[in-house]
């Protein structure tokens, strides 16, 4: 019995072949993703790396995808710091790309913007349970009248939910009501919304994106970021360690953390909405190939800026370009370090100093990652680098002690590039997933 795990990425289609009994990795392969000619072309190309004997006996096929733009979500709530933020966390945790977020009553201009963004799904929240009803009812009416016809997940005030559903259902084809993302002030409840988004993704959105062929052929199970997240959750559960994953991809850099992130010292007051234990952030402007223009903006200084720009221009013309010489490899290292550093800064919390009549105090916002045990690097930029360890170390170099980034984690590399496959196997074949974890995680020492 074998399982074939596939990741249709924005740049590459990756496959992992595993034995289920006894659990063992058979091999991995990849080929450029083929959006134009249908995704199966790229998959077949990737499978050419295996012999017919190796491909014999596959009983399980599962795939994840971030091709065709991934799962694009627009999140809507009432107050920016409260339900809007909660809705955003829920969408990110479902493996989505959050295209935009909106607060208060949607204006005509904002509705036009949403149409322009062409999301796969709207996540509509607003009001605590028993709290504000007006906002979510108004927004539902405005969405229904706007002519938008994307599926909507409703995760707001439960006292308004059935009315919201009635209003939306008149015009919107798929409306799913789930539990509130923020049932009480400063209480985050993202799991029900995450599940509802995933179900809608599998039932409706893959069809709308033309991924239903893939769905039938190989069993599309989830968006790729969710697969990586599930791998992290499994590792956290098995090892009991606090874990951060940095995934440097072609178009985005994702960071996942699995820890409570609460203050580590006395005299620190935690403010703001609580953070989810499994938190994901995705930086759409930090990527190795697609988002280089914006990445250039965070690379402050470099001796060779002119040559760097030329390299960027070449990559823009050919996205699957691989660094050809030492100099280009050096540029790729600069990009990767910038992605890691910037993405970790944005994911982690920070401290603010405050002087009060009681003396000096600290306010913490976001997660404290300073004492996490393990940092795992993945994504092509790290997996195929000659010196992933030094890239991670450079990305972790401490510049501002008030930023609660990881300080001395054990560094590990997903060196077989199979975290997505582990996530795809985690629910149904946990033993195989565990064996793959042991196989792929290679220690790179401490910082």
């Amino acid at each position, binding site marked *: 019995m074998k399982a074939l795990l596939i990741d249709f990425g924005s740049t590459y289609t990756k496959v992992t072949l595993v034995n289920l009994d006894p659990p063992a990795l058979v091999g991995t392969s990849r080929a450029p993703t083929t959006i134009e000619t249908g995704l199966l072309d790229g998959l077949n190309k990737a499978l050419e790396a295996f012999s017919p004997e190796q491909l014999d006996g596959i009983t399980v096929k599962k795939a994840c995808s971030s091709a065709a733009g991934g799962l694009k979500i627009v999140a809507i709530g*009432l*107050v920016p*710091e*409260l*339900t809007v933020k909660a809705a955003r966390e829920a969408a990110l945790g479902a493996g989505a790309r959050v295209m935009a977020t909106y607060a208060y009553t949607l204006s005509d201009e904002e509705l036009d913007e949403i149409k322009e963004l062409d999301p796969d799904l709207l996540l509509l929240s*607003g*009001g*605590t349970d*028993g*709290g*504000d*009803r*007006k906002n979510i009812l108004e927004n539902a009416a405005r969405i229904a009248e706007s002519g938008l016809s994307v599926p909507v997940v409703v995760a707001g005030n439960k006292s308004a939910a059935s009315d919201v559903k009635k209003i939306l259902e008149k015009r919107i084809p798929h409306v799913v009501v789930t539990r509130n993302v*923020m049932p*009480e*002030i*400063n209480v985050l409840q993202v799991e029900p919304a995450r599940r509802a988004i995933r179900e809608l993704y599998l039932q409706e959105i893959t069809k709308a994106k033309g991924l239903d062929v893939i769905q039938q052929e190989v069993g599309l199970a989830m968006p790729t970021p969710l697969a990586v997240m599930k791998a992290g959750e499994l590792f956290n559960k098995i090892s009991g360690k606090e874990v951060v994953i940095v995934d440097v991809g072609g178009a985005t850099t994702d960071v996942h953390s699995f820890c409570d992130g609460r203050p580590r010292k006395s005299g620190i*007051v935690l*403010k703001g909405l609580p953070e989810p234990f499994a938190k994901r952030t995705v930086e759409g402007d930090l990527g190795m190939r697609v988002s280089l223009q914006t990445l250039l903006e965070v690379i402050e200084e470099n001796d060779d800026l002119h040559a760097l720009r030329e390299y960027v221009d070449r990559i823009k013309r050919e996205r699957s370009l691989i660094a050809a010489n030492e100099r280009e490899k050096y540029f790729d290292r600069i990009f990767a370090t910038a992605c890691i550093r910037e993405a970790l800064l944005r994911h982690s919390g920070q401290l603010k100093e*405050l*002087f*009060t*009549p*009681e003396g000096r*105090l600290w*306010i913490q916002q976001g997660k404290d990652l300073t004492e996490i045990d393990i940092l795992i690097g993945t994504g092509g930029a790290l997996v195929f680098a000659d010196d992933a360890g030094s890239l991670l170390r450079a990305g972790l170099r401490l510049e501002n002690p008030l930023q609660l980034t990881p300080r001395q984690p054990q560094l590990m590399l997903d060196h077989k590039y199979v975290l997505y496959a582990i996530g795809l196997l985690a629910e149904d074949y946990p033993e195989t997933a565990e064996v793959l974890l042991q196989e792929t995680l290679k220690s790179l020492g401490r910082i």
Partner: protein
Amino acid sequence: MPGNNRIVLGVIGSDVHAVGNKILEMAFEEAGFHVINLGVMVSQEEFINAAIESDAAAILVSSLYGHGEMDCRGLREKCQEAGIGDILLYVGGNLVVGKRTFDEVEELFKKMGFDRVYPPGVLPEVAIKDLKKDLGL
């Protein structure tokens, strides 16, 4: 309790006095209110945001460290800007330092838009009775 019984409670500014805050939370909950307690070191924006999301009927502000005047100024105006200008605002505690009488203090805070002002040492029952009356509960 019928009607809107949701109230937002918290200690404003950089004030970390947590004990009275807990006592107030218990007392108001026992009296049948749905208390959204934001705890200590609460900014004006946090009070307002919580009141909007929970569609609260009143905001109850405590200040024990003498900076109440500075911390509370502009709260009513911000509520008006945020669309909840009619919300009930109560304030109590050691609101100011110096030699002002409570009458002066009460006048000062009423001018700032607070509906009820309480001196130090007032029992929760007094405020509970007032609040029930003001909300018609």
